[in-house]
């Protein structure tokens, strides 16, 4: 593994790891706010109990999110100093604004989670509101930086140097709106379904309390309501790609040859040698229709770009399919659950439906991770589309493999720690006692 690959691998692993926690950091505050709001509105204390139980794992997950976010901010300089020297003046503003939002979230999270004895219930509820707003805003802001890498704007190149810089134009780059909206809804979907899965597992294990039912209903409701919004924004994103990031769209759709009335390619294995996709399902004219709203329009393929300047469809296309496919799994699970919920006038206890919710639980996160892979691999070989190649941006320092290995160990240790904490029966009622035998001090 050479230094460039080690740097890319480290950045990729770090982001993949961070995204999980960042996503929960966006989704969970919304659930907390809704539960606390319901407790205040209905006077039903159980909603408050539901919320307080979320805070426990949330505190750990937020903490890991904060430290893994710090790793990322350092890695920008440790791995990609040349990129940052170029891009800092343009995307720094997005990070600064995100920083304020994240700061606000951290403050109110601390107030909410530690303030049970010191704050009134109303004040606790009001602490969740800035958490929701700040976490959504921080996602929207930081995504601007990624959007700028995809559709750089707000500067002019004069003799190889960026000049005439307008940070606000860079901030409001073309890819930002659709990426920000799509990404934020995806975070709500991912958190909602993941949480619902935990509670479905509880019901399946026979823990049929009203609290569990309430928590399942609320988290699945958030996931379900965000799902169509995520799909709609995904469609918007695809249209925007067709206009501004044609190579990425072509790679995602495994669309090799520029043609009119282009088919939509589902599944299969792209073969760049022959420019074909083996074992794929092809739906005539659908790609042209989805991209341009006209079934007979021309869609540029990978052949429309110079050799060596386009992403590899063998990586991008499968992740794209995985992302799209995930939403169908979630939609099916949600549909069945709510149908039974409506028919039985009660949270269903049917094993089949609960198992389906459990199966669908990780797919929000899978969709989010694979969507991010599409965005990132879909931009290669560029770190700043059309301006700076990833290979030119990497640090001149050697020994990156060692650093990659070090952080891989760090992430493994963190993951093992988190899993041990979250998945072991955490003193759930009766099960708790047996766990206490391993108590130390």
């Amino acid at each position, binding site marked *: 593994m050479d230094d460039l690959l080690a740097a890319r691998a480290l950045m990729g692993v770090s982001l993949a790891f961070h995204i999980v926690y960042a996503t929960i950091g966006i989704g969970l505050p919304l659930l907390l706010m809704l539960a606390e709001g319901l407790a205040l509105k209905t006077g039903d204390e159980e909603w408050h109990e539901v919320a307080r139980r979320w805070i426990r794992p949330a505190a750990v997950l937020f903490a890991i999110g904060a430290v893994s976010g710090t790793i990322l901010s350092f890695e920008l300089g440790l791995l990609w100093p040349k990129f940052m020297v170029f891009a800092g003046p343009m995307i720094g503003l997005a990070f600064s604004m995100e920083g304020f939002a994240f700061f606000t979230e951290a403050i109110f999270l*601390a107030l909410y989670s530690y303030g049970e004895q010191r704050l009134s219930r109303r004040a606790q509820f009001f602490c969740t509101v800035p958490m929701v707003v700040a976490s959504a805003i921080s996602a929207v802001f930081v995504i601007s930086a990624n959007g700028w890498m995809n559709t750089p704007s707000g500067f002019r190149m004069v003799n190889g140097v960026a000049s005439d810089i307008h940070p606000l134009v860079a901030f409001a780059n073309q890819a930002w709106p659709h990426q920000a909206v799509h990404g934020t809804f995806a975070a709500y979907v991912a958190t909602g379904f993941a949480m619902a899965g935990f509670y479905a597992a509880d019901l399946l294990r026979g823990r049929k309390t009203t609290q569990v039912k309430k928590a399942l209903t609320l988290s699945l409701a958030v996931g379900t309501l965000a799902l169509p919004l995520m799909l709609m924004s995904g469609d918007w994103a695809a249209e925007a790609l067709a206009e501004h990031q044609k190579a990425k769209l072509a790679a995602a759709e495994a669309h090799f040859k520029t043609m009119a009335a282009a088919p939509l390619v589902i599944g299969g294995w792209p073969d760049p040698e022959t420019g074909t996709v083996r074992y794929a399902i092809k739906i005539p004219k659908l790609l042209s229709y989805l991209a341009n709203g006209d079934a007979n329009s021309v869609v540029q393929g990978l052949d429309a770009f110079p050799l060596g300047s386009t992403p590899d469809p063998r990586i991008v296309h499968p992740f794209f399919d995985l992302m799209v496919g995930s939403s169908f799994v979630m939609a099916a699970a949600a549909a069945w659950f709510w149908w039974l919920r409506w028919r039985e006038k009660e949270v269903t206890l049917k094993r089949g439906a609960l198992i389906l919710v459990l199966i669908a639980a990780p797919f929000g996160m899978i969709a989010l991770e694979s969507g991010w892979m599409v965005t990132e691999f879909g931009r290669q070989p560029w770190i700043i589309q059309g301006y700076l190649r990833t290979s030119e941006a990497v640090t001149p320092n050697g020994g990156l493999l060692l650093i990659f290995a070090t952080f891989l160990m760090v992430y493994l240790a963190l993951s093992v720690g988190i899993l041990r904490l979250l998945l072991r029966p955490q003193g759930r009622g009766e099960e708790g006692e047996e766990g206490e035998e391993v108590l130390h001090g």
Partner: protein
Amino acid sequence: MADPVILAAIVLVAGLLMYALFAGADFGGGIWTALAFGPRAREQREALFNAIGPVWETNHVWLIFVIVTLFTAFPAGFGNLFVVLMTPLVLALVGINFRGAAFAFRHFGRESKKETPVSARVFEIASVLTPFTLGLAVSATAAGRIVIAGHMPTEHVSAWLNPFTLLGGVVGMAICAYLAPVYMTVRVTGSLQEDFRKESLIAGLALGILTSLMIPLAHYQAPLFAERLFNSWPMLFVMLAILTGVITESLLWLRRYFWAQLMAGATIVFTMAGFIAALNPDILIGQLTLRAAAAPHTTLVAFLAVLPIGALILVPSLVYLYWTFRGEPSTDMPPAGKGGGQGAPPP
């Protein structure tokens, strides 16, 4: 209108000072958890641990603020520093990571009554490692061993590992070890308060001796830095640091804890201000000026325009946070639902 480069530099320095003060006390909590002594060592650890709980994450965000300000306002400085200081920064990062995780795990473990000694040890080791490596990295910018030849330098061990930076790392630890017990004196009472008073006095003395050693060492190891420190107004900060340090020790002796805490903060501010003033006008002494490292005018103006809006939200929120958790740290283990949380069966 003032020069945006200077204003941005002030923002950077302010962020660094906030990080040193707040996270410093926080890391110091970890250091004294490791060093706790006497018959009430366990109570000391508990009190430190409980005091850090609600605020550590917020304290930690100041570092992100510093990093983001650095790459937004001084991108060339950021690029160069992160290339030449790769190793100490990676080590600091590993420390930050393990510390945060260990703290969270330990907290979570205590709530579910499954505390592991591993996470406690990791927390302590990381609390020592991080300020040491950060102190090392910061003092390397003043040591004058880093040479930027060409566009991007590569890392050289001697640039960041030499007697001056090693002592800088130890000073970094001493700053933290000094702030934490002083911070605790106003938060506990009785014999525990006496313990923290004793620790504060010792740490103050240690910090004084170490920073005094730094000055003659700088003369031999970091001559440009020493020259700037001695021959002009940065010396004023050194004097103020000595003065406030002595006042702090006296106040601690007299058990005037509230004022001692403020003076301790001032000591750190003046110590760091002296260091930074001697660095001025460079970000990397003798190699890269702040002005050369600065982002274009439009970026600086946009960045400075956003700041007050951010501050308008942040400052009241921070005040609310520290005000809510003022006084004696809670011993009850938040965050938990009524009835002791998940573990307890419904009444």
